[in-house]
């Protein structure tokens, strides 16, 4: 029993924090909201070796585990860094296992991948589904026939500018992963300007079938869930630190506001939720490496806890700061924008909560 980070993991985390600290990412988020283009942080990722984290060593990658990628995602989340890992990392997982020819370029980041994710069947919705453009009802996954794929996946993270798309489609009811090097991408950036999004359309588009199992395809979905979870916990950390600092310095009625129970208990609640989410990141990390059977539950629970922690923390950060926390010049609104959008991507926090229930109900049956 040892849940402590290994020396290598601590190094990976500290290096990520160091590399990202050299960029004013939150200021960039503010400027991007005003129309300035967001600086491209992919070179930072490439230099740090993050594109190859989940690619096996034989294929030129680091051969690491989902938890290691989560550590990096958490650091990105801390500073709202728009590094395109949410698209690339789950895609690289399938490209590596699936015998993709250009895997070396994926590993070194010279080729950037995006992941047109499909939600695995559950106990209520029994089909593979993808994000719809709008509305509660999920869309059918694209249809695959041989080497070609047709259909649309909306709100795909990091799709604009990606060199290859891993798309999950369905053929005869079974999921198939295809690597497609050309697809029509419509830019769909919205609300959180640090997050690159696109609607990706395939119209009989040709691709390469990846030799992966349905279980691996499902795992890629849950890797994406775990990455969002980790990213969110990082953002919560920043909100909490910022709020504590302010609560010590801001006085009202002759006392620092942090001495009032309303503020103190709110921030303790942020701590409670973020510590719980952190525990579930460990669960997801462990299951991602050791237990394919528990990965759906673990990754979904991590996303559920982290998503709700981020929602709570983003609002609490604004609240503790009073009026000033809701102004353009303050950092808190960019945490809030992050929270609002993250909550609705890749099935949404809500679907992750439903999945937790579904997994437990299925195993209780």
């Amino acid at each position, binding site marked *: 029993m040892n849940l402590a980070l290994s020396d290598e993991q601590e190094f990976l985390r500290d290096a990520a924090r160091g590399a990202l600290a050299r960029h004013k990412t939150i200021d960039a988020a503010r400027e991007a909201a005003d129309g300035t283009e967001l600086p491209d942080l992919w070179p930072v990722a490439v230099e740090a070796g993050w594109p190859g984290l989940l690619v096996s060593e034989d294929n030129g990658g680091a051969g690491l585990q989902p938890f290691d990628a989560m550590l990096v995602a958490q650091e990105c989340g801390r500073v709202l860094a728009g590094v395109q890992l949410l698209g690339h990392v789950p895609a690289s997982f399938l490209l590596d296992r699936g015998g993709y020819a250009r895997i070396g370029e994926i590993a070194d980041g010279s080729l950037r991948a995006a992941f047109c994710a499909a939600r695995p069947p559950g106990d209520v919705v029994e089909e593979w589904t993808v994000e719809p453009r709008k509305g509660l009802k999920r869309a059918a996954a694209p249809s695959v026939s041989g080497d070609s794929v047709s259909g649309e996946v909306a709100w795909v993270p990091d799709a604009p500018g990606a060199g290859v798309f891993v798309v999950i489609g369905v053929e005869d009811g079974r999921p198939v992963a295809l690597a497609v090097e050309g697809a029509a991408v419509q830019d769909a950036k919205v*609300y959180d300007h640090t997050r690159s*999004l696109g609607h990706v359309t395939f119209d009989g588009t040709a691709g390469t079938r990846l030799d992966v199992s349905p279980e691996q395809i499902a795992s890629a979905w849950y890797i994406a869930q775990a990455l969002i979870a980790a990213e969110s916990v990082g953002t919560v950390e920043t909100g909490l630190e910022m709020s504590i600092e302010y609560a*010590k310095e801001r*006085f009202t009625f*002759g006392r620092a506001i942090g001495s009032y129970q309303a503020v103190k208990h709110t921030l303790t609640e942020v701590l409670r939720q973020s510590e719980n989410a952190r525990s579930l990141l460990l669960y997801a990390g462990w299951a991602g490496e050791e237990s394919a059977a528990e990965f759906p539950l673990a990754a979904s629970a991590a996303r559920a806890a982290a998503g709700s922690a981020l929602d709570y923390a983003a609002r609490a950060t604004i*609240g503790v700061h009073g009026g000033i926390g*809701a*102004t353009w010049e303050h950092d808190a609104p960019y945490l*809030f924008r992050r929270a609002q959008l993250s909550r609705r991507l890749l099935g949404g926090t809500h679907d992750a909560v439903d999945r937790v229930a579904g997994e437990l109900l299925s195993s209780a049956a």
Partner: protein
Amino acid sequence: MDLNDSPEQAEYRTKVRAWLEEHKGEAPVLRGEGALTDENEIVAARRAWQGKLAEAGLAGVTWPKEFGGQGLGPIEQVIVNQEIGAAGVPGILDVIGVGMLGPTIIAHGSEEQKSRYLGPMLHGDEVWCQLFSEPAAGSDLAGIQARAKQTDDGSWVVNGQKVWTTNAQFASFGLILVRTDADVPKHKGLTMFVVPMDAEGVTIRGLRQISGEAEFNEVFFDDVKLPADAVCGQVNSGWGTALTTLMYERVTIGLGSEGLGYNSNRFAAAIGADPEARRDSDVRHRLGEIATELLSIKFTGYRTLTALQRGQIPGPEAGLAKVTTVNAAVKAGDLIADVLGPEALADDGEWSYMISFLPGLKSAGGTEEILRNTIGERVLGLPPEPRLDKGIPFSELRAKEKEAVAS
């Protein structure tokens, strides 16, 4: 229990409705086809429209007749508000002036102030703004640091910064609360002044909110000179004057629109348009809870009105209606965006704007926490928090705070 008008009220309503029916073509169009878009044009048109409403007796309904009002009761004000809403035309532009600052001047101002300012205020010729809040004096309003010093000739020099000021960018005058004596406890050394917003040394800067819009302003005062007769009320009695303004703020809210436009039917329509959502038990449950909160506020408003008609002034508990409304609207925004997905967050969309606007609205006019303290103490009779600032001269208090942060 009766939601209907008395015969007199019905008659008044008919009169108001008839006037609006006849004149609504003259009102500025703010939404839909042919709507004005330029801010200056909008302000000009709304000022002109306020003038017409005032001429017709539909502004300052509860103001005494001697100041151009109608000398009527709160119920008539509500009838006017309702009919203006039903006619689909804008109300007066200067709700803050006519609803809160004018009544403050009526209560505390000099005769000269009343005759100089009230008429142009009522008619929209001069718009007013309220200069109370500061960066370090929001919930704790008495912690004001902006200061005025009297010179030998009896005039005053004002320095400091105000914030969260609505309408400052086109206001002619403001009512400003400043510290005139720092050597007495903090509630005691405050004074209220009338300040012309075009005076030398006044700088107005838009304060952008999450949405990117500047819904409020910051106003800076740099050696702004005011004559001795700019004092509203008595020197060093500004706290009492400010309390009058805040009391009228509660009345204005009590008489105002139900739920700040956050209406359960509007939310239900957005969700009902999605056939999957309207049968989803989780979505329905969330919608039902939000709608229950908002519906209750409608009837809380009627209760307030009943009380006002009986001459009762709403207590601090009236503030709970805002808490209920804002929190329900926050939940509604989350629900609608959960149903519609990221599309709901698209720039310039109504839901995106609402979602961005609400976090700021939450603390506008005092945080929920302070309100709950006040209600707990004044309405429920619970004991106060220990106050470390009681009876201590303001200057000493500030020094203590600085020391505490440094340590």
